[in-house]
């Protein structure tokens, strides 16, 4: 197993290198970060030329990638535009743990910007994922064990409705109903945006209160999809011979379902959850935007739309590493759950 893990990790190195190269080239072609600098009008040509030089954006793309990867403290750069490279570079590069500085919030390390947002994203995404798993398992199993009953039809219809609704619709609808309308009707209401009420402060209860609607919006849609998956897996498993054998042996119904059927039915869910792990880091773009939740999804969109290569590359590389690691972890867990699987 140790050899297997080491081999997989070594294989990941060239993979991540290729990913970084492709992403960097794509990023540098998504727009000009100096075009408007976030302003309402085009950047003045004199300033644009100067900034391109100062930020290294006037260099050929291969050189920009090299600087991003290994830094430029081994060479000199031309800061004042006189054509003579006389200033020592200061960047250290990703391989030495420096993701560069944001082009928007100039001077702020890209990694700092990302790490500021990561806890908020995990705070929202982990409970959402846990709730999704619990709800989808409960609903899926319940529905499968009562196939073609009124409850099964009801749950199936509800799942399809939930799954077919776009997230922005659920988010805005819930915001208007539970915040705007409930307040107008004199009912207890939920907050619309942000993480806390500034009059009260950032207390755990305030944060929890502000998490309700975003988590509800994400859960409705994802749990609807997952519950269908669990239901179909469960239906497949409970018709297997070993389940019949378990019943014939006289095992209690609950033990047959939880100990034998659910364990096997849930196995493919591990793969799905494994794929979800990197998405947890990526955040939920729409939900975070609508509820003004300061997470990674918003950060990614905000900086992508402004072509802020260092920050976007940082996010993408973190997610890439997470994908590689989570897949490895998934394979290991799979082997642990299913003794028939051996890694040599």
């Amino acid at each position: 197993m140790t050899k297997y893990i080491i081999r997989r990790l070594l294989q990941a190195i060239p993979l991540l290198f290729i990913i970084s190269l492709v992403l960097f080239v794509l990023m540098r072609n998504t727009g000009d970060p100096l075009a408007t600098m976030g302003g309402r009008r085009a950047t003045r040509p004199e300033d644009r030329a100067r900034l391109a030089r100062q930020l290294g954006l006037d260099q050929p793309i291969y050189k920009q990638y090299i600087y991003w990867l290994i830094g430029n403290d081994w060479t000199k750069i031309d800061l004042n535009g006189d054509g003579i490279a006389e200033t020592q570079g200061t960047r250290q590069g990703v391989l030495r743990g420096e993701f560069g500085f944001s082009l928007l919030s100039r001077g702020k390390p890209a990694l700092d910007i990302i790490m500021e947002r990561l806890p908020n994203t995990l705070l929202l995404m982990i409970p959402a994922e846990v709730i999704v798993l619990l709800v989808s398992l409960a609903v899926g199993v319940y529905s499968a064990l009562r196939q073609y009953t009124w409850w099964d039809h009801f749950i199936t219809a509800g799942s399809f409705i939930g799954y077919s609704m776009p997230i922005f619709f659920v988010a805005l609808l819930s915001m208007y109903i539970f915040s705007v309308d409930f307040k107008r009707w004199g009912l207890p209401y939920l907050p619309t945006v942000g993480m806390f009420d500034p009059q009260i402060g950032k207390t755990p209860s305030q944060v929890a209160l502000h998490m309700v609607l975003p988590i509800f919006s994400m859960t409705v849609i994802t749990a609807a999809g997952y519950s269908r998956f669990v239901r179909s897996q469960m239906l497949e498993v409970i018709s297997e011979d070993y389940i019949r054998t378990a019943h014939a042996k006289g095992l209690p119904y609950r033990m047959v379902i939880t100990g034998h059927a659910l364990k096997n039915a849930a196995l493919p869910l591990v793969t799905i959850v494994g794929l979800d792990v990197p998405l947890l880091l990526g955040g939920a773009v729409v939900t975070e935007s609508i509820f003004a939740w300061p997470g990674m999804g918003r950060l990614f969109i905000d900086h992508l739309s402004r072509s802020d290569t260092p920050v976007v590359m940082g996010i993408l590389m973190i997610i890439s590493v997470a994908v590689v690691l989570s897949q490895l972890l998934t394979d290991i867990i799979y082997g642990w759950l299913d003794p028939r699987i051996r890694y040599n």
Partner: protein
Amino acid sequence: MKRQWIFSFVVSVMIASLVLAACVPATPAPPATEEVAQPTTEEQIVQPTEAPSVQPTAEPTAVPPAERKVATFAWTQEPDSLNTWYSDMWFADILQQIWSCWAWQYDDQNLPYPHLVTEIPSMENGGVSEDGLTITMHLRDDIVWSDGTPITSADFVFTYDMVMNEANAVSSQYPYDYLESVEAPDDRTIVMTFAEPFAPWESAFWQGLFPKHVLEPVFEADGTIDQADWNLAPTVGCGPFVFSDWESGSFMRFVKSDNYWLGQPNLDEIFFQFVPDDAAQTAALMAGDADLGTFPPLSDVPALEDAGLKIITQNGGYSEGWFFNFRDMASPAIKDLNVRRAIAMAIDREAIIQDLLLGLTKPAETFWDALAAYGYVPPDIVPWTYDPEEAKRVLEEAGWVDTDGDGIREDANGNKLTITHGTTIREIRQDIQAVAQQQLGEVGIDLQITSNDSDIFFGSYADGAPPAVGDLDIMEWSDSTYFPDPDTDYWLCSQIPSDENPYGYNYFGCDEQLDALFQQQLVTIDSAARTKIIQQITKYTHDQVYWYGLYVDADYWIVSEHLTGVKFSGVTPFYNIMEWDMQ
């Protein structure tokens, strides 16, 4: 037992996450109480007793928990930086009147009044020399930074030095690169010297200031101020409020300053909640979770008004319009003045404003309409009126006739009257494109429309951006002069993009007569003489249809009924923030 352990673990993790999230910022927590704020009174307010720290990360401010007057502003764009020289964002720049200071500010009539200086320099008071090459300013005696340090002329010289230093990647060196020097003969006097007269100086200089005592040590240590903590956490400022804390993506907070030389504001705290989604901003305002918002979706305006919110518009200098391309690579049709005139008469601007903008604005006739109050728009301009029949007649006379009956006109050589139109992906612009395509089609003009993300649309000549390389005959966006000054360098011949000048932004063409007028106004210090030149420019660009205005793109503010004393300037919007109060 095992299940209990797992359950306990999950619950513990969630609780720990909540607690950690609540403790994440190293910056001060706001008044931490679960009590709902009670109505406040002036008498109950307890003022902070200590000046804010000079350190980049603010220390907690001792504040009473429940009686504070906190105004929450929904801010749809998070600033890149609070240092105005490191951000071009409107949402960042307009915060200057809250925590920073300008030498002179502008009122709700967009007229300047002295702020840091005793009076605005002019020829009459001797502040501007006869030749226009020297401007002398005198500072007030009582102005101080929020930490109590006096603001002196050394801060102005330091600001100039930092902006012009190549080690600092400031967003723009305009207009400081027009200066030859800035000197401080004493700590109350600043002397600016130009190589050539620079007429727009009043609306361009000293829009913010660097505290020398804070940033000079940083520059000496690092050789640049790019990484200065002050840029993102300016705990020393010179406005009525002082920066408190900023949590990325979430909020920014300012508290009232103890050391503001004009007294203390009515509000205790201004809390900027970043709300990137327009619909969510509307909901937050309607639910009372925000007291101020900006630029609402126009379709939401009736609902906002029904909810008791006020919509205030202010002229910020911008107008939405079409820029016409008359460079060599443009289509022959668009270079024909008759075609441009026909287009101006074939577009029903009133219908666009009524149908797409709910009648909330008015047509912009010239690029200088936002400055009409200054007299830059001559009275003899004849507005373009919607007259499709006249447009057809003009086209017929110019030789554009539909000979093959397909609804599109051709010239004598059979070339189709096809015009390309490009803009950014902003929804209203794409709607206008669709309407314009239909209206121009009715007079026999084929309008081909495209749109791009703004960072691609405004890309450089080297990047192949459509306007820069001349792929578009008509380009649409909202723009202004160096408001409130009438100067613009968009039509200068020297700004035409090329291999040698890849960042040039004259995407339109070189008209030597127009170029000469622009050059002349730039160095004309005499106000009356300059106004006459601007009037000539205004009329010329209007009659040549180099720019065709669609509508005045005003600033829209949504104000809660709880906020009182609210006024806005188009230049320095929060100029009277001192007088704002909460009911």
